[in-house]
C-alpha cells in the first residue's frame, strides 16, 4: 500500500477548468481562493508552438512543509496519510502558506484562517471520489493509492516538471503523465 495521492494525465487535459470549478463549488471558495487551480503554459514559437495545462492542488506530501512548519499542529497527517487541517487550531499565521512550494494552502481573509485541498476527505470517507475527479470531462484526474495508479497509468509518470518545485523537497504524493512539451524549460505561463 502506497501513499494516497492524485494522478493527472496532462496529455489529455484540454484546460477547461471544470475540476477547478468543481473544487470551488465543493469548498464554496471565495474569489482568489482556489484549492485546485488549472494553469496554462506555452512553449515553442510560431508556427510550431505547443501548449499544455496543469491542474494542481495540495499534493499531500510525505515531507509536507506545511505540517512541519505549523506552530499549532493544525496541519497534520490524517490516518490515511493525507495532509489535513484542523481549522479550529489554525491561527492564520500563514507559515504554511510561505512554506509550501506548491502554493497549496491559501489564506482566507474573511475567516482569518488558512484553507487547502483536503482531497475531499468527507466524500472519500463515504466511498466517493474527490469532487474534481468525478467532474473531469476528459477523465484524467484520479485519486488513490499511488502504487496502484503508477501500475495502471505508468510507466512514464513523473512527480516533478520544470513548472513544479523539485520533488525531493516535500515528496509530493503526485503522479503526472507529462506531455512532451512540458519538459521544455523555456515555458511561458498564459492567463487565457
Amino acid at each position: 500500500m502506497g501513499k494516497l495521492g492524485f494522478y493527472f494525465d496532462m496529455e489529455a487535459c484540454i484546460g477547461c477548468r471544470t475540476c477547478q470549478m468543481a473544487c470551488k463549488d465543493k469548498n464554496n471558495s471565495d474569489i482568489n481562493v482556489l484549492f485546485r487551480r488549472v494553469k496554462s503554459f506555452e512553449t515553442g514559437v510560431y508556427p510550431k508552438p505547443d501548449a499544455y495545462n496543469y491542474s494542481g492542488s495540495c499534493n499531500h506530501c510525505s515531507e509536507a512543509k506545511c505540517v512541519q512548519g505549523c506552530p499549532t499542529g493544525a496541519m497534520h497527517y490524517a490516518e490515511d496519510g493525507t495532509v489535513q487541517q484542523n481549522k479550529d487550531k489554525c491561527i492564520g499565521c500563514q507559515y504554511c502558506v510561505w512554506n509550501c512550494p506548491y502554493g497549496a494552502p491559501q489564506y482566507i481573509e474573511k475567516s482569518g484562517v488558512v484553507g487547502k485541498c483536503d482531497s475531499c476527505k468527507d466524500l472519500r470517507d463515504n466511498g466517493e471520489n474527490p469532487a474534481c475527479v468525478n467532474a473531469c470531462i476528459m477523465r484524467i484526474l484520479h485519486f488513490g493509492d499511488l502504487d496502484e495508479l503508477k501500475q495502471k497509468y505508468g510507466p512514464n509518470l513523473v512527480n516533478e516538471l520544470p513548472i513544479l518545485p523539485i520533488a525531493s523537497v516535500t515528496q509530493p504524493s503526485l503522479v503526472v503523465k507529462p506531455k512532451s512539451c512540458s519538459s521544455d524549460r523555456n515555458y511561458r505561463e498564459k492567463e487565457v
Partner: protein
Amino acid sequence: MANLLDKAREMMISRRKFLGLSATAATGAALLTLPGCGLSKLDANEATALANKEGTWISAACWHNCGGRCLNKALVVDGVVIRQKTDDTHEDSPDYPQQRGCLRGRAQRQQVFGADRLKYPMKRKHWQPGGGDKSLRGKDEWERISWDEALTYIADELKRVKKDYGNRSILHIGGWNSQITEMSRTLGLYGGYTEYWNTNSFGSWSMTPKTVGFWQLGVWDQTVNDRYDLRNCDTIIMLSMNPAWSAMGSSSWHYWQAKKAGAKFIGIDPYYNSTYSSFGAEWVPIRPSTDTVLLLALAYVLLTQDHPVLNPLIDWEFLNKCTIGFDADHMPEGEDPKGNFKDYILGTYDGLPKTPEWASEICGVDKVQIEQLALEFGKNKKVAFLCGMASARTRNADNLPQLIMTIGAMTGHMGKSGHMTGSTMHATSGNGGPALVNAGSNGLPGIANPIDDTINANQIWDAVLDGKYNFTGKGSFVSADQYQPGKMRDIDIHIIYHSGGAILQTSDGMTKGIEAHRKVDLVVSHSQFLTTNSKYADIVLPVTTEWEKFGGFLGGTLVHSGNREMILMYSQITEPLYEAKSDQWIAMEIAKKLGIKEKEVYPFGEKQQFFNALSSITVVNEDGETYGPLVTITQEDIDKLGVTGKPQTGKITYSEFKEKGVYQVKRYQGDNYGYIAFKDFVQDPENNKLSSESGKLEIYSKKLADTINNMGFSKIKPIPSYIKVVGGYEDTFKDWGNKVKDEYPYQVITPHYLRRSHTVFDNVKWLQEAWVNPVYLNTKDAADNGIAEGDTVLITSAYGKILRKACLTECMRPGVIALPHGAWVDIDEKTGVDTGGADNILSGQVPTGQGVSGFNTGIVKIEKHIQTKLIPDVEKPARIIL
C-alpha cells in the same frame, strides 16, 4: 443588498420563498466580491450548519446554448443549494459515457442565486409613454415599479403604437427567432409584429447545404459518422473548430478516443487552439475568411497530382456517380459546360489556375504546406474532414460548405466507415446520427404572426434608424421562405420588445444597435440580470430561471439541444426568486390587458405542457430502427401531477426518470445504433436522392447562385469560387500590389469562450476568475505595437473601440487577433470606449450572400492604452440594481 433579509421579512413572503432567498445568502458567502453585501456574516455559520445536514440531490436544469448538454444536480438542504454534481447514474466508460457537465454548469448556482438577479420590475427614471428622454437609455437611473404598473405601461404603449403606426412598428425580438418566445403568442394574437432573423452560429451553413444536397437527417451537421466510427479514421482534419471550448460535455473525450486509436490530427485555423494543442495536431495557420482560397488550391493540387496508379488521390468513381458540376461532362442540362469546377480550378477559361502560389498570397499558408495538406486527403486514407461553422460565419462565404463538400467528394470521404466530411459542432460534435431519443411536444398549438416583415441581423439597426430594409421573405434561417428575392421596404419601428435572447449584444453592429435603441418610443426587456438588452431598455421585467420552474426536458433533438443518445429531465430547485415571473405568466398577463382571452394564448397550463412533453418522448428499440414511448406513467402519476392523460408503458418509470434526471441509451460495440452518413446514397444514388434539385451533391448549383443573387446582398457563382471578402485580408491594405497596409492592418476573430455560453454566465464571478477574457495577440504583432503581456490594448475598428488586456501567444497567426465572443458591453460614457470587450462593438452591419453575420470577418488596429487602468472583470462590482 445589506438588508435583503429584512426586506424579505417585510414582504411576508412564504416560507418556501424565504428559503429561496436564504440560498442567495449562502452563495453570497462565496461571492466575496459583492460590495456592501452584509449577508456574508449570516451565512458562514449557516453554511456550516447546512453542510452537516442530510440533503436531497435534485436534477437541475443546465439549459444554455453552450455547445453541451449535460446532467446537472443540485444538493438541496433545507431549500438551500449547497453543492452541485454531475452524472453518476451509471459506470463511466468511453463506449457508454456519463453525461458530465462543464465548469459553467458547476457554477450554475452562482448564476441562479446571484446577488445581481433582478428582483423587481423596473422602469427607467426618465422614460415616459412616448419615450421621455431617450438619450439616457443605458445610463439612466432605475425605479422599482409594481408588476401591474409595468404591464400596464407596456400594454398601453402597444395599444398606442398599434393605433398610430400599425403592428409593423412593433419589433419583437426573441433571440435567434422572434417566434420562439412566449410573447410571440400574445403579440401574434394582437395582430403581429416585425421579426428579426439572422444566420446565427451557422453562417453560410444556414441555406447552402440543403440546396446543394450536403444534408442528412434534415439538418446541416449530420453528414459525419457516429463517434464509434471516428475511431476508425487514420487522419482527422479539422477546419476552424475547437470542441475543447465550444462543445463541452463528452465531445472532446470522443475525439480523444480517436487519438488513442492512432488518428493523426491536423488543424486549419488562425489560432492553434486548445483542441489542436491537446490532440497534438499539425497546424496549418491560415488567415481568417480565406478558407475558400485554401480549399480551391487543395483541389488544384489534387487534380494536378492525381495519378490512378502512382498517386491515387481522387475518387473519380464517386465524382461520376454522386456529383454534378465537377467537370464539363457532368454539367446540369442547359448550363454552359465551361462553367464547371474543374476548369475553374485549372484556370482553363479565366487564365488563373488556383495554384498553391496563388492561394498562399491570400490565405497565408505556405505553398509547400498546401501541397502536403492536399496529399493528406488522398482517397485511400481513412479521413475525417471536419469543420465547425466558424469559418462560415464570415462574409462572402456562401460557397464554403459547398467547397468543403466538393473536397470530400473529390477524395471520396463520404458514405463509408472511417470516411466522413462536413460540419460537426455543438452538442453533437464528433457524434453524428439520428436521435436515439426523441423529445416530446408540449402540445401547445402554434400562433402565427400575421405580419410578414422580417429584418436581417445585418440591417436591423440601420432599419430602425433609417426606416428601410431589404425584405427577403420570412420564416427564420432554417426556412427556404427566408431566402426569397429581395425587395426594399419602408419600416417605422416604435417599440423594440426583447422577450428573450441577447440580440443587442450578439448581433452585428452593437454601436448602431445602441443608437437604434435610443431612437424608439419604448424598449422592453425580459431578463434575469441587467443584461445588455435590459441595460438599454425602458421597462425591464425580471424572469425566472429554469431552476424556478416546475420542470422540463433538455435534449432529444439534434439541433443545439443534446447529443443523440440521451434526454434530460429537470425538476424545480427553488421557488421563483424575489418577484421574478415566468415568461409565460408575463405573456398571459399582457394578453389580458390587451383584451385577449387567457385560453387563446394558453389553452392549458404549464403542468399539462410538461406532461404532454413527458408522455410523448420516444426512444429507439434495440433494432435501431423502430421507436416506442420512453416513460412508463401510471394513473397515480397522472393524479399526482393533476393533469389529463393516459397511463402508458415505456422503458423507465416517471419516478426513476425524475430521480436520475437522465435517460441514456446504452451504447456498446456491435449495437444497432451506429451511423455512416450518406451510406445509402453512396451505394445507390439513384434511389436515395439528396435534398438538392438533382438529388446529387451539387458542385454546380444554379439554384444556390440564383437564390443568393436574387436576395440582393451580394453575388456568387454556381460553383465554389474566389470572391474578394468585404472587410477581409485584402482590405487590410491600401495598396495590395505593393502590400502597403491601411488604417486597420489586423484581422480579428471572435472565438467562443469557456467563461460563458455566448453571453450567458458572463456575470458570474467564479467564471470571471477562471477565465480572465484577454485579447490574444501574436507576440510579434504585440512587439510591433509596443504591447507587453498584460498591457491594456485599445482595439479600434471602423465601428467602435474596446479595451482588453493582452495575452501574448505564439499560438496566434501573426496579423490576426482573437477576441473572445460574448463579453457584456460596458461603455465608458465619457470616452465612448467599451471596457467590457464586447466583440460586436467592433463589428458592423454588412450583409452579404444569404444574409450571413460575418462575426469572424473584421479588421482592426491595436494600440497600447495607458490613459486609464482596466479593472479586471472579476474585480468589477456586480450589476446589483435595487
